[in-house]
């Protein structure tokens, strides 16, 4: 599997708090925009097409699960 889903966050709880905090004071439309921009920024940073496709596949499956 190209995508690494083993623990790789150096500061997991700090990251999680920052992610929620990124949305502080934003309305729903702004939050959607921020999320989309974050996805695009990180996708570009990763670059590898197979990794990105696999991540998207996992995300879609997760969304379709009950």
């Amino acid at each position, binding site marked *: 599997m190209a995508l690494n889903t083993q623990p790789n966050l150096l500061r997991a709880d700090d990251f999680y708090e920052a992610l929620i905090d990124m949305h502080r004071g934003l309305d729903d439309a702004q939050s*959607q925009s921020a999320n*989309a*921009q974050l*996805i*695009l*920024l990180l996708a570009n940073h990763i670059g590898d097409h197979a990794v990105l496709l696999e991540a998207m596949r996992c995300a879609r499956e997760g969304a379709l699960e009950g």
Partner: protein
Amino acid sequence: MSIDYQALSFEYRPCREQQTQRDTQPAQPAQQAQAAPYPVIVVGAGPVGLATAIDLAQQGVPVVLVDDDCSLSTGSRAICFSKRSLDIFDRLGCAQRMVDKGISWNVGKVFLKKDLVYTFNLQPEAGHHRPAFINLQQYYVEGFLLERAQELPNLEIRWKSKVVGVQQNGTPGAGDASVTLSVETPDGIYALRGRYVVAADGSRSPMRKMMGLDSKGVTFRDRFLIADVKMEADFPTERWFWFDPPFHPNQSVLLHRQPDNVWRIDFQLGWDADPVLEKTPGRVIPRVRALLGAEAKFELEWVSVYTFSCTRMERFRHGNVLFAGDAAHGVSPFGARGANSGVQDAENLAWKLAMVLGGGAPDALLDTYASEREFAADENIRNSTRSTDFITPKSPVSRVFRDAVLKLSRHHPFARQLANSGRLSVPAVLRDSPLNTADSDSFDGAMVPGAACVDAPVHMDGHPAWLLRQLGEQFTGVLFCDGRGVDQATRTALDALRAGPIPLKLVVVLDGDAPADARIGMRVVHDTEGLASTRYDAKPGTFYLIRPDQHVCARWRQLDADAVERAVARALCAQGGAATATASPNPNANANAVRAAH
């Protein structure tokens, strides 16, 4: 003296089939087809039909071109003609007039609100004869093509000749197969028979409908106001695209300059716009004023509201009828992949028909027209669809991402490559074509088998010239040499290729100022700037085999005449490693014999 091409009207004359019928059986309707079928009938005198007919006639194939009307196109149709189309028009003898009249451009700009977010240059390097694009109204392109067509004695154009019936005779692909068209004219209906018919009769293709066939795909839920506006304006000669500009909030606008001070402006209106109301001057003029300023002076030349689709026929070949241009496939205009891909269809088809009719290739070669151009159509549809989806996001979340890309583009270079206001037309690389011979030697660069040849500045007979003008129209061998010249073994191989069953045109590309060996007896060009050998990743001894349509067929690091002959045979779908048809030194001699002198 300038001609108003939109106002031209051409004369209808009864054709010889109608004369014969009138003379011999005046009371009978025209049921008899003529004695021998024409080699090719082209249906539709638009850019694609005209290009096909000219290319066939240039290659020695007599053509009858029928059109249901007697005039050229009017209003705002295709305007952006790509470098590849210009290179094809060069070979057809019309490009210079088009470039002289047209507006050349290479640069495009993309704006978000008031800010420039992205600039692209479609031809950043020098050393190409033709620009990335010219803007020229379709009626000029047709007018210039028509004037060229009228110079060719074996090209007959029949105006006010509407095809109302199609019947295929015999087993498609067999030597005696033909197609009978029922053609309606002001003097009644007559039968016109051809070995092959090219259906280039546009997006609504009556030929397609008569044969019970479809062009299927996706329609984009959006409407666009297309306005041709006559005005003097200072905008530079660049393609400008705005997302959400202040003068047209939440929608897109595209601006192109055309000749005669005509500007083409596309305003995205949204699906809920009223297409009838939006064409009225009361609606259009304020939109144009908002873009140009309240004081601007302009006239509306043409206004229409369009909805766009990307569609294609499943197969472009049906028996002995071959579909080309919009009749075969349609795209949304962002990217200029409509007329341009049709012109590429024409050049792909013409040499193959010429070869088959001349006995140099079996009928199966025409199947590769369909497969190669279906592949290209898919690429054009994919690109046009992606652009249109970016311009007209199909869902709320798609819109979120689209807007996110644009916002990121302001500050971050990576996002600019995602901003898609149109991926402008480039020729498809026919990488999987069965006509290619795969590289057995190692090569870098873009000139892979299946690629359209790239141009380079050269010198010939002491004068500046262009490499691309030396290639194509027939199979061409290109040998790269340095100062050591051509040794005897190579010269013997070249002579064999020149005199082979399908004779090759030979071009020798000499390094820089290397002296030309006058005894070589083939076209010699000097690669004075070294760009030919760079672009073709050539070393001394490198040999390229180029198809009549200027696509790379095969290439080697050393000339091996047998390998070249096998590659030619492969490119002709010939059996057994050499062209087996009874090819004469003039491959088109048979085509002339099919249609007896009249």
